[in-house]
C-alpha cells in the first residue's frame, strides 16, 4: 500500500484534506485541467477519468481513496501532436461544439470500447451473453452518463462507431 497515486504514469502524493475529490485534486492541485467539472454530482460525466482501466466519475470519489491507483485523464490519452484514435475521430466527425464535455466523452468512450471488447452487456443488449455488437443503440445506452449540452450526440456516436468498427 502506498500513499501515492499515479496520474498518467507520474506518481503524486495524496492531498492532506480528505474532502478533496479526485476531480479537484487533478484539476486544482496538479493543474491537469483537461478533466472538466460540470455538475459535480455524477450526473453529466464531464469529469470522467479512467482508474485502473475502469471509467468513473472523478467528482464522486475522494482522492485519498485512491492510494496505489493508476489514473488516466484526457492528457494521458493523447496530445495535439499524437492524438488517440478517438480524438482523431471526434475531430473528423465534428463530435463537439463548445468542447466542454469532450474530454469526459473521450475518456468514457475509450473505456467503453474496452467494455465492449470484454463482451460486457448493457441495458440495450439483446442478449446478456455472447459477443456484443457496436450498434448506434448500444453506443447511446453505454454513453448515457455523458451529457452534451450542445447536442453534438449524432456526431459523437458517429465518431465512436468509426473507431469501434476499425478496431473490430
Amino acid at each position, binding site marked *: 500500500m502506498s500513499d501515492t497515486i499515479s496520474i498518467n504514469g507520474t506518481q503524486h502524493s495524496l492531498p492532506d484534506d480528505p474532502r478533496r475529490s479526485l476531480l479537484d485534486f487533478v484539476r486544482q492541485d496538479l493543474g491537469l485541467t483537461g478533466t472538466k467539472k460540470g455538475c459535480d454530482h*455524477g450526473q453529466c*460525466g464531464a469529469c470522467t477519468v479512467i482508474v485502473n482501466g475502469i471509467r*468513473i466519475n472523478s467528482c*464522486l*470519489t475522494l482522492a485519498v481513496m485512491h492510494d496505489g491507483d493508476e489514473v488516466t485523464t484526457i492528457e494521458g490519452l493523447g496530445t495535439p501532436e499524437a492524438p488517440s484514435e478517438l480524438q482523431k475521430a471526434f475531430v473528423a466527425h465534428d463530435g463537439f461544439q463548445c468542447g466542454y464535455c469532450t474530454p469526459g466523452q473521450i475518456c468514457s468512450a475509450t473505456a467503453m470500447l474496452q467494455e465492449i471488447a470484454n463482451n460486457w452487456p448493457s*441495458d440495450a*443488449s439483446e442478449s446478456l*451473453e455472447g459477443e456484443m455488437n457496436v450498434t448506434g443503440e448500444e453506443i447511446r445506452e453505454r454513453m*448515457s452518463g455523458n451529457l452534451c449540452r450542445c447536442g453534438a450526440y449524432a456526431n459523437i456516436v458517429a465518431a465512436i462507431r468509426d473507431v469501434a468498427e476499425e478496431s473490430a
Partner: protein
Amino acid sequence: MRPFSYTKARVIEDARQITADESAMAIAGGTNLLDLMKLQVETPHKLADINRIGFDEIKKTADGGLSIGALATNTATAVHPRVRSDYPVLARAILSGATQQLRNKATNGGNLCQRTRCFYFTNIDQPCNKREPGSGCGAIDGIAKLHAVLGASDQCIATYPGDMAVALSALDAQVHIATAGGSERTVPVRDFHCLPGDTPWRDNVLEDGEIITAITLPAPVGGTQIYRKVRERSSYAFALVSIAAIVEMKDGLFSRADLAFGGLAHKPWHDLRIAEALIGQPPTAQTFDKAADILLEIARGYGENDFKIPLARRTLHAVLEHAAEEAA
C-alpha cells in the same frame, strides 16, 4: 462538504469500531454518500473507508447458490458469468440503473443502502422528516411525482430508488450483516428495507456499527426472468414503476410467479398473495387484473403521482403477458 476525519479500514473490525459511533459512516463506492455530503444532507464527522477490507468476491455457495460480496461493484456483479446465465433478472436490473461510470464504482452493499431521491430529502432548505425528524413532509401536497403509492405514512411518502434490490426481492435473496458485537445475522432482502411509518429516518434494519458483508442468492431458479423498468428517459433515470418477474408456465397455466415492484414504495414491494392468485391460472386479462387488484388494494396517490396506480396495473399486464409468452 463539512470537515470529517478519514480512516482507511484494513479489516472489518476497524470499520465496525469506527461506525459504532452514530456520527460516523462507512464509505464504499461513495457515489451516493459523497453526493449527499456535498449537499450537506449527510454530515458524518468520521468516514471509515471500507474499500480495502475484502468482501468483494462472487462465489458459489454450498447449496449451489451464489454469494455476492457487499463490496463487489454493481458492474462486477452484472457482468459475472453466473449472474448473466443463472440470474438474468438481477443482471438486467443492475444494468437498467444509473450509468456505466456509476455502476463501475457503486457497490452492492451501498446500492442496498442508497437513500431516496425525494426532492425534499435532498434539499436542506425544505422540510423532511427523513432528514430532519419533526420538520414535516414537503412532498405530501408538494412535488410528488416520484413518490410512493403503497405503504407510505403521513410523515413520509418517499420511495426507495434502487433497481437491484427489486430483482433481489423477486429472487428472495438474503442479506448477510456483520453486527457491531462481532457476530453475524442474516435478513431476507424482503425484510431489509423498512416502511416509513413514524420512523421515516430509518431506511433499513441496519444498526450503528453493522456492515453488510454479502448477499446470497438461492440455487438457480430458472424460469423466464424479466426486469421491466418504466421511466421518463430511456436511459439513466429512476423507475416510475419497475417489475422484476420470474415466471414459469405449465400446461398453459402459471406455475410460478415471483414478482417484486420498484418505484411504488419506501421498499421493494413484494406481496405473496400475488403469486398465490396467479398460480394455476391462465394468462388472461382477467388473471392479470386480479393480480393488479391485489397489488394495488391499498394504493393511494398524492396528486402528482396518481398516474403510478394505473401505470403499475398496465406494466403488470405487459410483464405477465410477455412472460407468459416467453415461458410457454
